[in-house]
């Protein structure tokens, strides 16, 4: 059996390898890491969330998720690196240590396990989950159009054959509903960061409306600081701003919902492609991508820690 020190962070992994990694990390760090299963995917796979906590009860928390879109492999791979970084930097990095002494971190590495498994076994280019849509031969719902935030608006589709099919109703998908239930029942999540690839952007609400978020000035300032930290490692250049002004209108997205739930520090990343590989980012870029992103994540986490609300 391996361990998380000898684990290959420089390659992509199957779903079962990722789940094994999670179990290893929990076994190696029982006082810091635990695994919670927040639900089951459409095909019945467990939706695992790692909890990093030094104690306390219902502490203010930071949520990070990767892999809502199946084919964005660098995101799931980065989630593995982040998990390892949290345990290695606790006790050695003052910012991470201070944060974890007062707050919990939740990390869902594979939000869409059915889709991710499908990319390994059938179709590397698959994006959505694997829901069988009634009345259609087309499969899957785009989990980042299924949230109850402008659901059904522009930038999503009601056609099951579309890559941005929103589903029949908000929170219809178990992968989404499980997070919704978790966030609601926890009630003390202060930052929610959802990680995608690719196009090198750091975005904040809103995507479904041109109305600026009421905290736009602060979100903008933190984003600028975060991408500056990110660029300090390899010079990777990011754009930042609200989703609708920076990319395009997209309705039913996760961070619009979390922001409307009162989670002020709601952000979404679009990770690298610094070259021209798109979703086929070579595996030797996993660790550099994760390392630079980690610097930006720490800025957001640190700001959340230092600015309680």
């Amino acid at each position, binding site marked *: 059996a391996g361990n998380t020190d000898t684990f290959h962070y420089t390659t992509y992994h199957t779903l079962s390898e990722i789940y094994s990694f999670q179990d290893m990390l929990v076994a190696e760090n029982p006082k810091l890491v635990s695994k919670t299963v927040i639900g089951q995917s459409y095909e019945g796979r467990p939706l695992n969330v790692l909890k990093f906590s030094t104690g306390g009860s219902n502490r203010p928390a930071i949520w990070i998720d990767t892999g809502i879109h199946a084919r964005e492999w660098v995101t799931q791979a980065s989630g593995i690196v982040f998990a390892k970084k949290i345990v290695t930097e606790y006790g050695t990095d003052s910012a991470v240590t201070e944060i974890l002494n007062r707050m919990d971190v939740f990390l869902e590495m594979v939000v869409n396990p059915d889709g991710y498994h499908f990319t390994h076994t059938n179709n590397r*280019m698959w994006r959505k989950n694997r829901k069988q849509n009634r009345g259609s031969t087309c499969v899957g719902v785009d989990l980042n159009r299924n949230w109850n935030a402008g659901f059904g608006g522009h930038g999503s589709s009601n056609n099951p054959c579309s890559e941005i099919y929103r589903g029949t109703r908000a929170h219809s998908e178990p992968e989404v509903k499980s997070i919704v239930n978790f966030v609601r029942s926890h009630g003390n999540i202060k930052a929610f960061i959802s990680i995608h690839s690719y196009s090198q952007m750091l975005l904040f609400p809103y995507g479904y409306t041109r109305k600026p978020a009421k905290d736009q000035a602060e979100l903008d300032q933190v984003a600028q600081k975060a991408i500056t930290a990110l660029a300090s490692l390899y010079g990777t250049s990011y754009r930042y701003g609200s989703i609708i002004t920076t990319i395009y209108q997209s309705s039913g997205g996760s961070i619009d919902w979390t922001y409307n739930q009162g989670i002020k520090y709601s952000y979404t990343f679009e990770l690298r492609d610094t070259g021209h590989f798109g979703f*086929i980012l070579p*595996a030797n870029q996993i660790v550099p991508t994760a390392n630079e992103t980690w610097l930006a994540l720490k800025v957001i986490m640190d700001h959340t820690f230092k600015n309680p609300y």
Partner: protein
Amino acid sequence: KGDFHGHQVFRIVPKDDVQLALVRVLEDILDLELDFWRWVTPVDVRVPSHSLQVVKTYLENHCIKYFTMIKDLQALLDEEQRQMKSIAP
């Protein structure tokens, strides 16, 4: 397992909103089986082999700039698999 032999990924650089709208028209032509990787400018789109000529002609007829970002998608996927297998436990 999905076969992406002959698929290419184009990076399309519309010069204005009119050209962008012309690119978006392609999305609705289901027979082309295009897979848009990026909707924001520049637009990246995976084009199956059977649609390559049609898409190229369309872009050129409308003077829309593009270049081939990935010439052989399957080659990249094969390399990805080879690398994973070489390290798999």
